[in-house]
């Protein structure tokens, strides 16, 4: 067991047990700090969610056309089609970054054309792939309005405080994701004076918790952000980047990563690199998908339902 596993209080084995759910799609509910799987997504969807819900979509990588998925646009369209067909319309969507593969204008245009068909408000944070155009301006031109710094912001919906963070810029050699001093200061200010009974949802591209530092899957100063959230009774941290479902609960904080709509990536340490994972064509859609998050007033934990494109 490595050091970071000790710190997280979650063994690697436990994490991999979690991973075995990745291909199926499970409704998670949590009581007393222990996540419990209620059933497969098919059953979960049959039950109408009570309360306020929103949807997470991530890593659409519009423009990606390599063997792991030659048609990332097509699978994004399928994901949006499923969102449109949901029996209960979510209040809005969050996109946890890597909208595009190479931050080209045409890729942003395609993404917008497809995602807007869901007819939902979308709150974005950038992934590293969205910030690689020569002048690093296309993401901010499209989605940066009203945001601070590299694109961070917060808003309130149905009594929940949402915080979108950017941990993909100004990365340091040898390091992980990075929030930086300015953003951390802003976060501290944003939370100051807020009632600790306010449920908090934090979303960012790279996991804020250390998933696998050997592949850069973590945020160097993520622990400082989590320090500011310590006093709050209900904190949910939603990330993307690793193209697979992973969840852990630590005290008052539930961490969760969403699937990509474009291509899967290997479980930590199971491949030479975190690059796109080529799977059999008939298996691809079971590894892509979205997540919907249901908030029930009075409950500490938000229920997270991961839905693959094909179960």
């Amino acid at each position, binding site marked *: 067991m490595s050091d970071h596993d000790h710190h997280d209080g979650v063994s690697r084995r436990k994490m991999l047990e979690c991973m075995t759910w990745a291909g199926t799609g499970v409704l998670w509910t949590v009581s007393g700090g222990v996540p419990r799987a209620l059933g497969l997504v098919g059953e979960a969807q049959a039950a109408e969610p009570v309360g306020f819900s929103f949807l997470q979509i991530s890593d659409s990588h519009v423009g990606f056309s*390599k*063997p*792991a998925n030659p048609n990332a646009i097509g699978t994004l369209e399928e994901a949006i089609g499923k969102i449109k067909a949901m029996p209960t319309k979510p209040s809005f969507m969050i996109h946890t970054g890597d909208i595009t*593969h*190479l*931050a080209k204008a045409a890729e942003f245009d395609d993404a917008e054309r497809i995602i807007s068909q869901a007819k939902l408000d979308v709150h974005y944070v950038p992934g*590293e*792939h969205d910030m*690689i155009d*020569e002048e690093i301006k296309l993401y901010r031109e499209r989605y940066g309005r009203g945001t601070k710094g590299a694109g961070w912001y917060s808003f309130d919906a149905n009594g929940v405080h949402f915080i979108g963070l950017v941990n993909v810029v100004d*990365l*340091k*050699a*040898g*390091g*992980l994701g990075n929030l930086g001093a300015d953003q951390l200061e802003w976060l501290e200010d944003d939370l100051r004076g807020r009632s600790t009974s306010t449920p908090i949802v934090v979303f960012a591209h790279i996991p804020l918790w250390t998933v696998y*530092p*050997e*592949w*850069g899957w973590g945020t160097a100063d993520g622990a400082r952000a989590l320090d500011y959230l310590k006093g709050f009774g209900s904190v949910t941290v939603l990330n993307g980047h690793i193209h697979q479902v992973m969840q852990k609960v630590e005290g008052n904080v539930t961490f969760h990563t969403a699937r990509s709509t474009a291509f899967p990536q290997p479980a930590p340490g199971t491949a*030479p*690199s*975190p*690059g*796109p994972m080529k799977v059999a064509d008939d298996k691809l859609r079971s590894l892509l998908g979205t997540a919907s998050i249901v908030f029930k007033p009075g409950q500490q934990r938000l229920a997270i339902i991961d839905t693959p494109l094909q179960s």
Partner: protein
Amino acid sequence: MTIATIRHLAIRCAVAAFMASQISAVRCETVSVTIDNFTFAPAQLTVKVGSTVTWTNHDDIPHTVVSAGKFKSKTLDTDDSYSFTFATAGDYKYFCSLHPHMTGTIKVE
């Protein structure tokens, strides 16, 4: 001058030119670094002053080659290359600004 002498001179000339080209190749060598599986290979490389290093990305994911204050590539998509000529001796540490766990060093002497 006999034909044999001319031929002899020509051969000597050709040998000299060949040797000259060898010398210039040593002075201004071109060395390759590949990017496979999120790794620069070789990660440590020693070259002579004046050498050009070319990085080529073989991954299905874009990478960059950045040495703070020294050089910075554009985003390299699959099979894209970036070259930098090292005019000054020193140790150049570099990394991929998208995947900062990817690091390497060029030692120029």
